[in-house]
């Protein structure tokens, strides 16, 4: 006796039950992030024809050979790579956007135009205290707006440093988690539902890691993942190496893996580092603008006399945009008259020199160039970001078409496996009927 109808039917019913379980699991996790659609892999049980001839019937039904995770490594890698690029572009745009806001919303352009207009208006009556007061208040507004912009940039810089530190801490935590999952994968047999669940977690961690930094992933024995960054190993079978971040002398971010410097070219950390470099450049240019204003007006003041006939004193103090400040609020302190003029002189000779010095310092033009440069960079990066987002969406759609759960498919499977189960039940009934008909002989 090499074949048993009842055993075959039982194995068929069991297989259908497993398939129904997997279908139910798929339906339950249809909305779970990172869940990959499972299916059952079945194989026929036959053979064992040792004692009998080859023509003998030797059938034993079906068995579950494993749970299949419907995903391939290439599509996963594409999603990681494109997601990494998109995260970099997003982080860079966020950084540049904050630079643009800090420069534009501080109203430096308007303050410079008003200051120059105030000086030009003072020419109608250089001894008029009201007009002088307007110039002084415009100067104060200009200094304040430069302070605000510098403060905004400094706050954005602190924010970017914090972002980088958070990203590095998160990446290191993910490395540790991945190492634990690797250890469990080594002990988990192939084709089990446990392994499938662990692989889901592994892939989710790899996605998170690649969004933070453009890591290279290789899959080793037992489906364990090895991760490296810039040629330096982060997670390997021998353990985890931590990523570190510091500030280079020029204010940019310096990354290292276990003390070895690495450069990060993708992921949000790369975008943050690129944004920070541009922020530092913008901050230095803003200081140049502030220093141009300070230098031009203070030297113009020095070559004239104030309303009371005394030598002109410096108007602005400070060494950059962060600390530029009006040294005096006294309208009489404006040195509109040329050196040697008497007290109360209406001679606007030095006022002309002041306007010429302000124009000559090109502070307004330089600031305009700075703001234009940053806003053009934001606009350009937006185009790149949209392109990268389209690419990432495409890669994701390709992956999802393979690994995502479709409820319609699962409904069809539910029906199919239910029918398979019912058919196996019918086979059992036939087996009993056959047995009964033999018992009823005689």
């Amino acid at each position, binding site marked *: 006796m090499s074949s048993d109808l009842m055993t075959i039917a039982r194995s068929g019913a069991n297989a259908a039950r497993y398939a129904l379980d997997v279908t139910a699991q798929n339906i339950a996790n*249809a*909305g779970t992030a990172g869940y990959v*659609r499972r299916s059952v892999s079945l194989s026929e049980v036959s053979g064992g024809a040792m004692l009998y001839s080859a023509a003998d019937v030797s059938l034993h039904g079906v068995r579950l050979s494993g749970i299949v995770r*419907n995903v391939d490594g290439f599509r996963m890698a594409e999603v990681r790579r494109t997601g990494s690029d998109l995260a970099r572009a997003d982080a860079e745009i966020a950084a540049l*956007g904050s630079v*643009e*806001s800090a420069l*534009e919303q501080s109203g430096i*352009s*308007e303050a*410079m*135009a*008003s200051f*120059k*207009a105030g000086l*030009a*208006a003072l*020419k*109608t*009556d*250089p*001894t*008029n205290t009201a007009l002088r007061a307007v110039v002084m208040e415009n100067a104060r507004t200009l200094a304040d707006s430069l302070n605000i912009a510098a403060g905004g940039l400094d706050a954005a810089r602190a924010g970017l440093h914090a972002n980088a530190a958070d990203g590095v801490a998160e990446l290191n935590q993910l490395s540790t988690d991945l190492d634990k999952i690797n250890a469990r994968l080594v002990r988990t047999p192939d084709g089990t539902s446990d392994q499938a669940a662990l692989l889901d977690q592994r892939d989710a961690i790899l996605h998170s890691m690649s969004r933070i930094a453009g890591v290279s992933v290789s899959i080793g024995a037992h489906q364990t993942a090895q991760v490296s960054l810039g040629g330096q190993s982060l997670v390997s079978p021998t353990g985890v190496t931590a990523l570190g971040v510091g500030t280079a002398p020029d204010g940019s971010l310096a990354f290292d893996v276990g003390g070895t410097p690495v450069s990060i070219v993708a992921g949000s950390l790369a975008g943050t580092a690129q944004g920070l470099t541009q922020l530092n450049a913008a901050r230095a240019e803003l200081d140049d603008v502030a220093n141009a204003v300070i230098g031009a007006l203070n030297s113009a003041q020095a070559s004239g006399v104030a309303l009371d006939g005394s030598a002109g004193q410096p108007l602005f103090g400070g060494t950059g945009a962060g600390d530029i400040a009006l040294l005096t609020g006294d309208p009489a302190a404006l040195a509109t008259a040329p050196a040697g003029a008497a007290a*109360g*002189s*209406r*001679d*606007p000779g030095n006022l002309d020199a002041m306007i010429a010095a302000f124009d000559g310092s090109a502070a*307004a033009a330089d600031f*305009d160039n700075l*703001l*234009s440069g*940053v*806003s*053009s960079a*934001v*606009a350009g990066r*937006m185009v790149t970001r949209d392109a990268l987002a389209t690419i990432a*969406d495409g890669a*994701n*759609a390709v992956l*999802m*078409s*393979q*690994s*995502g*759960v*479709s*409820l*319609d*498919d699962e*409904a*069809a499977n*539910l*029906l199919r496996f239910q029918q398979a189960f019912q058919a196996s039940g019918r086979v059992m009934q036939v087996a009993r009927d056959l047995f009964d008909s033999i018992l009823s002989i005689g």
Partner: protein
Amino acid sequence: MTGISTHSFYERSIGNMTSLRARAETLQTQIATEQRLQRASDDPVAARQLRRLAADDTMAAVYKNNAAVAAADLGLAEDAIDQLSNLTIRAQELATQAATGTINDAQRKIIGDELEQIHTSMVAIMNTRDSSGNPLFGGAANGPAYAVAADGSASYAGSGQPAELDVGGGIVISRGLTGPDLLNYSVGGTPTDLLSVVRGLAVSVQAGAPGAASDARTALDSLTAGLDTLSAGQAVIGARQGRVELAVTLAIDQAEARAADRIRLGETDMPTAIAELQEAMTILEASQASFTKLSSLSLFDYLR
């Protein structure tokens, strides 16, 4: 096997509807604020031009004020010169009377008194203040343009040149004339000025001295030359007023050009924006309707 995953169907639908809604909101903001650009990176080139236009507007306001100040001061100078001319003509009439030999000393005294009044009026006119309260004909000085000595003679006390005003378009206008520009001239190579001529005549005629009639005759020539100098000053003022008017006309044209640029670069084109908003809303409604239809389509509904 490729299929449409339920999760990605929902995500894609949500993504599409979100981006449509975002576009509609951007258009709505553009319509509500009438500003096409919400931040410089929306259009860096246009934003830069808009900043330049705003700076030009700020300066244009100053130039407009400068032009008004210059026009007011030049108007004051014109009025002053008109009055000086009238007074000089009256002085010529009086000098002509005084020069005739038929009047007696008592009558000359009366003529001399009137000439002295004319001198006083002239000094007062020369000490007129401008629209900023500074001496109109005193150059850059703060005090009165002409100081009156104890004996009644007046001398120029101003200094320097009147301030120049930038009225836009590269046009710089001197806002007035100095006293000497208006009153000093030479007769037969001898420098003199209108005030001292009138005062000299007044003193001479009042005294009724033997030479009064001949002094008056000499003064007549001098007064005619003075009147010519005043006319020259009036011509200068008139030319400057012409330049101010030119600058004002230019400024109006430029302001219109800037306004047109600002509308072109920075303001929302309402018909386009409203049409685009309508389009976005229609597409959004259609997406919502088709999403509802598609998402209600489930095989489970047919499993019995």
